[in-house]
């Protein structure tokens, strides 16, 4: 077991920067999730750790040892491929044994270790099957057992759940997380599904265009996003664009908003839907704590089951989405209703990104 450290890791293809100056210090036993939109360099980063892509610049350290120039087969990383990459001509047990054989584990011990690894993923009873005789979820678990069997220093997962259906994804998420905690193995997972990242990670990294946007715990990223991009990518936000003049934010639609954080010039507010309070009308819009309260008109309603999204039009340019708990019949505002909208002063504020 060992921590992983990436320093100034960059990969350039000609002029194109697939990743640029990635710095990460992953603690021993930590579950780190790389999150970001398609093409932002997540897989590139993961494959550099595994040794399949040689970085243009920077170093990779595992357990204190520099592995930057080591070929993949001399590194101790267990990678679970997105398509699982199980060897079709080998049985499940032989697949799992492969890494042990390559690491010169004595023949007598291999059987026991294979059984242990398969038990970890509850597949002991299918050891003699071939990969094609197994479901997607089972193949995924074989891939996991294969990657773990030779006891690598680091476990790497590239979108391990993307080929599973929604229900199974929920289950496997917890299985992987539990297993990881039980083994205490340093793990880096790549995903573009923010819910996956939120539920599984110790810490997560948001990437964009090859660069790290923010690194932190779920709470840090959700409550205190560092940029408009992070606020839109982790969770949902309504954005209100405007500018600061004289220490006060005024939206382009004309709303004056009190904020704790003050900037200068063009800026953006990010409002989380569940932090927005809806009142029946402007009358009950008391704001003792000095929250911001405005009048608006319900523009649309989306029914999500346990909650309801209410889109409120505050003026011609400013719209926000509020999430209300679905409490049955009486909790329904209807389109066209006059409502009051209240949100706190500690909303995230960013300088407007250059258009």
């Amino acid at each position, binding site marked *: 077991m060992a921590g992983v450290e990436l320093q100034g890791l960059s990969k350039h293809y000609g002029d194109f920067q697939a990743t640029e100056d990635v710095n990460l210090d992953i603690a021993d036993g930590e579950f780190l999730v790389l999150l970001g939109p398609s093409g932002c360099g997540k897989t590139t980063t993961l494959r550099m750790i*595994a040794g*399949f892509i040689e970085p243009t610049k920077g170093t990779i350290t595992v357990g204190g040892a520099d592995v930057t120039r080591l*070929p*993949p*087969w001399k590194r101790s*990383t*267990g*990678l679970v*491929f997105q*398509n699982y*990459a*199980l*060897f*079709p*001509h080998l049985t499940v047990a032989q697949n799992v044994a*492969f*890494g042990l054989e*390559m*690491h010169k584990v004595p023949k007598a011990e291999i059987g026991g270790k294979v059984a242990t690894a398969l038990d970890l993923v509850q597949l002991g009873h299918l050891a003699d099957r071939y990969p094609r005789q197994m479901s997607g979820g089972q193949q995924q678990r074989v891939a996991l057992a*294969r*990657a773990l069997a*030779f006891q690598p220093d680091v476990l790497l997962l590239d979108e391990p759940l993307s080929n599973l259906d929604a229900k199974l994804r929920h289950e496997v998420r917890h299985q992987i997380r539990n297993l990881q905690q039980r083994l205490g193995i340093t793990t880096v997972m790549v995903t573009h599904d923010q819910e996956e990242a939120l539920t599984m990670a110790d810490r997560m990294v948001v990437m964009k265009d090859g660069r790290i946007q923010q690194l932190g715990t779920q709470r840090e990223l959700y409550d205190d996003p560092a940029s408009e991009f992070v606020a839109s990518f982790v969770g949902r936000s309504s954005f209100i664009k405007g500018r600061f003049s004289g220490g006060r934010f005024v939206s382009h639609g004309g709303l004056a908003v009190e904020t704790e954080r003050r900037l200068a010039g063009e800026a953006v507010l990010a409002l989380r839907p569940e932090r927005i309070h809806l009142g029946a009308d402007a009358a009950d819009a008391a704001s003792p704590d000095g929250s911001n309260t405005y009048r608006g008109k319900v523009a649309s309603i989306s029914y999500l089951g346990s909650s309801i999204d209410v889109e409120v039009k505050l003026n011609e340019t400013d719209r926000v989405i509020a999430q209300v708990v679905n409490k049955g019949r009486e909790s329904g505002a209807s389109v066209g209703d006059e409502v009051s909208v209240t949100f706190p002063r500690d909303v995230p504020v960013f300088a407007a990104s250059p258009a």
Partner: protein
Amino acid sequence: MFSNRRIGRWTLNALATLAFLFALLPLIFVTWLSFYEQEIPSFPPTGYSLHWYALAIANERFIDAFVISAQVGLVATAIGLIVAIPASIALTRYRFTGRGAINNLLLMPLVIPGIVLGFSLYIFQVETTIATELPIMGSFWGLVFGHVLLVIPWSVRLITASLVGFDRTLEEAAMNLGADPFTAFRRVTVPGILPGIVAGAMFGFVSSFGNLEVSLFLVAPGQTTLPIAILQYLEWKIDPTIAAISVLQILIIIAAMLITDRFVRISRVV
């Protein structure tokens, strides 16, 4: 609509059957002829017998020729594979200057008329024999060399086809688990492209085993291959022995195909 489609399918089936029969017709006649009782083929036959098969199997020239053909075919196939496997890997996995040219060169023997190929090899071997004073011309290895050229295009074609279809993340998975590139190739890639290798070997062998034109130029007296032995027999005699030995040759090739097909589905790789 519906009936249109049915008529379409029916026409297609009928045409396919016709084409198939057309291709099989000579085969059917040769087989029929091999069972004739009389020596001079005429219609209708006076009766049927296995007499000609007995003669064919008892003919020592045919037996010797068969042994030579089999030896040349096997050795040429083995050498052809040793060349074709690395060549296929280079052609499918690396970009280098002259890649297209080499690809065409390796497939060339497939499109060059056999006579031209045989004649060129003949000139080449005569010249090198004179120049080096080594016993190349008319030797077993000279003949094998010519047949290697027949094997290579088939095996390169079939092996590259299966390499193109091979999922390279499997090799990466092997290396991730600690296998060096050579071990990954041996343990994961080779099993994956085995159908292509087997099919390539078989098609190579069959094209060597049935070859007449190239062999004609390269064999020495007393070292004839089976097709040449058949030709020589025909020069002084026409009787159903020829039909019988041809049928036997075809049976051997069909057996090779069936055995291979049990091992890999030929229809999937060709």
